[in-house]
């Protein structure tokens, strides 16, 4: 209640809005107590008037603060003049001045602070924006990196796939290579075989050619012989003439007598066989005598002659057998053209009688 009393005693110039509200409050409470005591009709006429007064007071207090500066100075001067006169409140004036000064300082400080605050706010905003910028950059970077990584991953995948494919291709190629190598080897072997065959056939060809040449020579020589024999009867003829004639005939007949006839070859072969047979028999006989010499057996001359004769006889038989012909004492032509009529058979039995006969013959010869 003391504070309320202070308010009621306050100087009108120092009256603030809060003071007015507290006055209204106390008046309200006073009016409340009156209504409680005497009913609401008792204060009905007073309340709108009081409210009006309080409103006025409120507006006064509100406007009074704005107008206060020049009015305050005037008031201060009036107070100072009054103060000189009355000297009742010097301390208050001084305090007021001090407070005004303080207020001024504080207002200055406030403005400084607000300025600073503004600055700081600006800085904050700046730093904030800067941070945002960095984050965005980072995100951008991340996105870029992600793109790069994705691309690289795809690349790696495609490369692995490609690699796989390549490996498969390589294997297939390797297989093919092996196949080709096998084929190659086969072909080489075949070529070698063919080469060998070619070589041998070439060799055969040269041999045949040589044989042909030899034959040709033989034919030539035979032709020569033929003409020589033809020219023998004409002994009266001049030798030179004969020769020239022979040459002419030779040249003429050369074209028509290039080859042996079948009979010629037969004859040659037969002659060869006969000679070979003789050679064989002579060889064997030689061996026989060699053996006798080596054994150093003394054979009586009688027996030796018998043996010789036997050998002669046997030789004839063996020869006939070997040549498959009938024994014939006639000339070779007889054996050549005479057909082998009797088969001599594989066996030849010479009886003891025959041996005795041979021995006898030998003895006769010796005698």
């Amino acid at each position, binding site marked *: 209640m003391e504070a309320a009393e202070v308010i009621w005693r306050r100087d009108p110039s120092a009256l603030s809005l809060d003071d007015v509200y507290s006055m209204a409050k106390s008046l309200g409470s006073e009016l409340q107590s009156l209504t409680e005591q005497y009913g609401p009709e008792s204060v009905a006429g007073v309340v709108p008037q009081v409210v009006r007064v309080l409103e006025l007071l409120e507006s006064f207090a509100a406007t009074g603060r704005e107008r206060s500066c020049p009015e305050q100075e005037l008031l201060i001067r009036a107070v100072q003049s009054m103060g000189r006169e009355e000297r009742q409140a010097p301390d208050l004036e001084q305090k007021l001045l001090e407070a005004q000064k303080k207020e001024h300082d504080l207002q200055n400080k406030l403005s400084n602070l607000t300025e600073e605050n503004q600055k700081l706010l600006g800085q904050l905003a700046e730093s904030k924006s800067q941070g945002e910028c960095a984050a965005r950059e980072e995100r951008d970077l991340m996105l870029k990196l992600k793109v790069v990584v994705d691309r690289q991953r795809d690349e790696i995948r495609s490369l692995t796939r490609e690699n796989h494919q390549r490996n498969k291709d390589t294997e297939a190629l390797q297989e093919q290579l092996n196949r080709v190598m096998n084929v190659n080897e086969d072909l080489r072997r075949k070529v070698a075989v063919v080469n060998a065959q070619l070589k041998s056939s070439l*060799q055969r060809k040269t041999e045949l050619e040589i044989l042909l040449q030899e034959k040709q020579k033989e034919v030539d020589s035979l032709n020569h012989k033929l003409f020589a024999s033809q020219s023998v009867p004409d002994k009266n003829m001049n030798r030179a003439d004969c020769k020239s004639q022979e040459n002419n005939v030779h040249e003429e007949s050369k074209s028509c007598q290039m080859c042996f006839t*079948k009979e010629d070859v037969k004859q040659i072969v037969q002659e060869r*066989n006969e000679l070979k047979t003789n050679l064989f028999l002579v060889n064997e006989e030689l061996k*026989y005598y060699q053996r006798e010499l080596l054994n150093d057996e003394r054979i009586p001359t009688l027996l030796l002659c018998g043996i010789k004769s036997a050998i002669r006889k046997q030789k004839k038989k*063996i020869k006939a*057998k070997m040549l*498959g012909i009938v024994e014939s004492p006639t000339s070779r032509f007889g054996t050549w053209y005479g057909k082998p009529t009797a088969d001599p058979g*594989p*066996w*030849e039995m010479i009886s003891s009688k025959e041996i005795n006969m041979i021995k006898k013959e030998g003895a006769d010869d010796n005698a």
Partner: protein
Amino acid sequence: MSVLPPVRRDRIVADLPQCFKKEACLHTRDSFHSKVTSACKQQRTGTVGFRISKVIVVGDLSVGKTCMINRFCKDVFDKNYKATIGVDFEMERFEILGVPFSLQLWDTAGQERFKCIASTYYRGAQAIIVTFDLSNISSLEHTKQWLQDALKENDPSSVLLFLVGSKKDLISPSQYALMEQDAIKVAKEMQAEYWSVSSLTGENVKEFFFRVASLTFEASVLAELEKTNARKIGEVVRINSNDRNLYQSSKKNKQKCCQ
């Protein structure tokens, strides 16, 4: 008492050489016929004489007939081909079961143009060696024709047949196996004994000719024994004919008995 000196030591045969393939051979006995061995022991084959068997070798040109004979008789091999003109022969002397025996190997020309000359030498052969080239199937196919030609001049019932595949060294064992099947089939058809040889390496050449010599010898001795025994057998037959009459009459009697 022989004109001929003893044979070389490596031409002496004491046991029968064995066949090459049991599927295609003339006979599978592992020793000489008992009649032959006993005849040779008793020297019944003749005291003096020159036993000679004619063997002809036929086959396509350049199958290696001459090479085979040269390998056996001279133990040489000439790589160069030299065509045989008409016909040629080699003598080879053996001693079989102590009996001297000669093989006259007639080497005929395979070339068609010499065939007319060569064929005149086919006559009177005791053995025919039909040769083919193991590396040339067509030469095997021609063997039948060669045999047919050779048999025209000979008695098919008494002549011994041999089918020989040559140049064995030229083919691989697998090729050979195939070829052998065909050859054995052909050999069976012609009732010949099958052999395969290589004149280059000498494989089976000696064995083959020893077999030829032995079988020819055996056949000759058997034929000779039959001939000499024929007269005696004739007498025996005469007696037998009487026996048969008796038997027949007794048979009749028997029949009567039964009735």
